[in-house]
């Protein structure tokens, strides 16, 4: 559904690779996790705390909190505000986070 304005061959920058659940996702340096997911065709990043409905990144600017994911074990991270890093582990945020002390 989403595609980049410039095709991959337009850049010779290195590729960043990370895991999203069981998938390997490639992105460009400087991408946000949300942008990387959307350009890889992944649109569901979480399920809601109350009704368990699926959600996708929406505002892409840190406001709507629709794009919550778990990053390296850290719950409820806004994917649109987190930059991709090589080797990071991103998971779908399933419902509300648990509180762990």
């Amino acid at each position: 559904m989403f595609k980049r304005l410039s095709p991959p061959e337009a850049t010779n920058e290195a590729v960043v690779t990370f895991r999203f659940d069981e998938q390997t996702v490639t992105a460009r340096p400087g991408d946000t996790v949300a942008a990387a997911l959307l350009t890889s065709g992944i649109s569901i990043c979480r399920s809601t705390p109350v009704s368990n409905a699926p959600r996708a990144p929406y505002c892409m600017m840190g406001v709507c909190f629709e794009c919550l994911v778990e990053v390296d074990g850290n719950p409820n991270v806004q994917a649109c505000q987190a930059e991709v890093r090589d080797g990071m582990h991103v998971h779908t945020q399933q419902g509300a986070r648990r509180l762990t002390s």
Partner: protein
Amino acid sequence: MQQCDFAVIGGGLVGSAIAYGLASQGHQVSVLDEGDVAYRASRGNFGLVWVQGKGQEIPLYSRWSMRSASLWAALSQELFELTGVATQHHNPGGVHLCYSQAELANREVELNALAQATGRQFTFDMLDHDQLRDLIPEIGESVTGASWSSWDGHANPLYLLRALHNGIRHYGGEFVPGSKVNRIRRNGGSFVIERDHQTLTVGRVILAAGLGNRELAPQVGLDAPLVPNRGEILVTERMRPLLDLPTTYLRQTGEGSILMGDSHEDVGFDDGTETPVLAQIAQRAVRALPALANTRVVRSWGALRVMTPDGYPLYQASESHPGAFVACCHSGVTLAAAHAKCLAPWFAGAEAPSEITPFTAERFHVQTSIPA
């Protein structure tokens, strides 16, 4: 010609509960709401339906709170059936946390006095740390114990407000948003209410405009010496259920976020927030539930309490302007059921509820002569 039986000035929780009560009893009601330029205490509050500790100076206030708390579940159910809006009312009892043996002992003395003053209608238990941990597994080690009362609970104040608004419309009442009441004047046996682009002639008028009652009350021979008192609140991201019952300063909402309150600040009409105050609130919350330390706060806000000089409500019928009343209080959530079910009938001509007799403005008036 009267256009309406009642005008309720103020569309917050107090005005809406009263208007809902009147409309549900078959009266024609218009709710005149100033709009979002008003201070909107009903949009900024914490959502406790709370009894414990209230009314130490005036035990009838405890009885009034208990009356409302005991009517709350039925009101909530009734509103849900009428409007489809659930208030999330939940009454698992509530706790007030104490951080030392001395504090715990003081609390017990206070609540015992309150239980006695209410003829043991108000009941409570004191919990030590282990008993408290059975109720709240995440409770912090530094919490010595708590007082617990089955009277306490909580609800979502925004859904309550929406349910009341929908309920008023369901019974044919009118909710008129958008401009302030400039003036109220008498015209024969009626009241003429002047707004920017509208005048309304009504039989009775109820002032429920929160802090706005200060200016309105004298126009109908009443006195409402209210002062704003700011409370700040923080709210966290949504979490799995971990706090089943409300505490005085912490509660988990139906959606999973945790509300952390509160402050009591004398800062005039400033409803903003200040970082040091928010930090203090957060520190207290983390002391109660240490696991909160790694949660994110997603919003914070300040709101102004509607406070009388002694903190108790003000309910009064005007003697000089029969048919005009004032109603204001800080506890619009707790008292919503009493306002709808017991206070509204009084405005429509029934006997005043016996609990409210102390709450007229005469108690604020300085005695100018010493009796011989």
